[in-house]
């Protein structure tokens, strides 16, 4: 066996996958603009921003529940009943535990991390599983599920002769592929897989295709 076959071949190729061959959706050569689609340039798909409904609903629920609980207990005390046990013990703990108490520190760390997480949620787009596609119409927005894009790329890699198994990791900037090679020279297979992935990326027409494609090809065991 050649030495090449015993070692995984690892290369990285840089360059945008967004080459000239990747037209905008619906702008194949010779396509005439249809009605309602002015022949303007490519609209770079916006990344969709989540409305953050679930975290907002959770925070709203917690705040509402706490306010109602406290309200009910305050009113109970006003009409002459005694305060609930949770309120007296909470007041007692808050009034007796010093700041260097371990539970106060743990609580403060949890509260600070929760706050940081909420700030991150507020500032980031979210919806990381939805990859925007290029469109030719500003009123049309399309996204491709990340899992679907991964499956399409995997199928493209598997169509290369000699590849018996392919795993794809599609990040936002990087596409990493690993191919098990059953026959043929891994170097050639790697080059073929790389160009097959490039072609498939063009076909997917992602608005922000990964800039780097790295392919590892290694001979499959047995």
């Amino acid at each position, binding site marked *: 066996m050649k030495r090449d076959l015993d070692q995984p071949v690892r290369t990285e190729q840089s360059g945008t996958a967004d080459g000239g061959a990747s*037209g905008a*959706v*619906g702008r*194949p050569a010779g*396509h005439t603009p*249809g*009605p309602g*689609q002015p022949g303007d340039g490519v609209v770079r798909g916006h990344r969709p921003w989540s*409305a*953050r*409904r*679930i*975290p*907002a609903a959770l*925070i*709203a629920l917690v705040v*509402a529940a706490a*306010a*109602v609980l406290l*309200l009910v207990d*305050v009113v109970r005390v*006003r009409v002459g009943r005694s305060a609930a046990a949770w309120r007296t013990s909470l*007041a007692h703990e*808050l*009034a007796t*535990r*010093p*700041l*260097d108490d371990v539970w*106060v*520190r743990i609580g*403060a760390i949890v*509260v*600070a*991390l929760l*706050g940081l*997480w*909420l*700030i*991150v*949620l507020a*500032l980031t787009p979210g919806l990381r599983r*939805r990859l925007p*596609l290029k469109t030719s119409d500003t*009123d*049309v927005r*399309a*996204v*491709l*599920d990340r899992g679907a894009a991964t*499956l*399409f790329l995997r*199928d493209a890699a*598997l*169509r290369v002769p000699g590849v018996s*198994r*392919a795993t794809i990791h599609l990040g936002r900037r990087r596409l990493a592929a690993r191919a098990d090679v059953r026959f043929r020279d891994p170097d050639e297979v790697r080059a073929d897989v790389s160009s097959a992935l490039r072609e498939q990326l063009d*076909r*997917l*027409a992602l608005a922000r295709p990964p800039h780097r494609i790295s392919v590892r090809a290694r001979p499959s065991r047995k």
Partner: protein
Amino acid sequence: MKRQSVINRILLGLAGLVLLGSGLVVLAGGFNLYERRNLTPPDGWPLTTPGAVVISDGTRTRWTDQGWWWPVAIAVLVVIAVLALWWLLAQLRRTHPGRLRLGRPSAPADGVELNERALGDALAADARGQAGIGQATAHMLGTARHPEAHLDATLAPDTNPAEVLQALCDGPLTRARQSTGHSDLPFQVNFRTSRHKPRRTE
């Protein structure tokens, strides 16, 4: 960005700032940072020594003997609870156009109306007829004046999403726009694909 997204994000960010700030103040006091770093906190800054407590009995009962305290406390709690419930309900509510008026938006008000569900079903059925699309469901969001069409479509394996999207725009979307008169009806497509075994044949 949508208005709801902006409101949610501002409120989440404010809640995050409050939590992060109070957590950091307690930690700074608990680890005695002010003395170790020779910092002098501003006058009235709370919780500066490790021996301090978060809410002392004195702080908690400072105003309880004042006549205004309990009515104000109860009113503030009611306001907080109502606002939080309103925010919660806003998350559960989605705006639907209800009925779409056909024809140009400036057409007379007694025109023909179309149920949003009818349009969604027609759009989905039309989309399912396109090559490369397995399943499709569509629904309308937005308001009656500014409706938006949303389509969830499952792509068959070995399809070209770019071409399918173009076919959707040329076919079902254009027909929906022409038949409703909303010539710039916004269209949002979510493409998925069904899980499938690796396949090598073209």
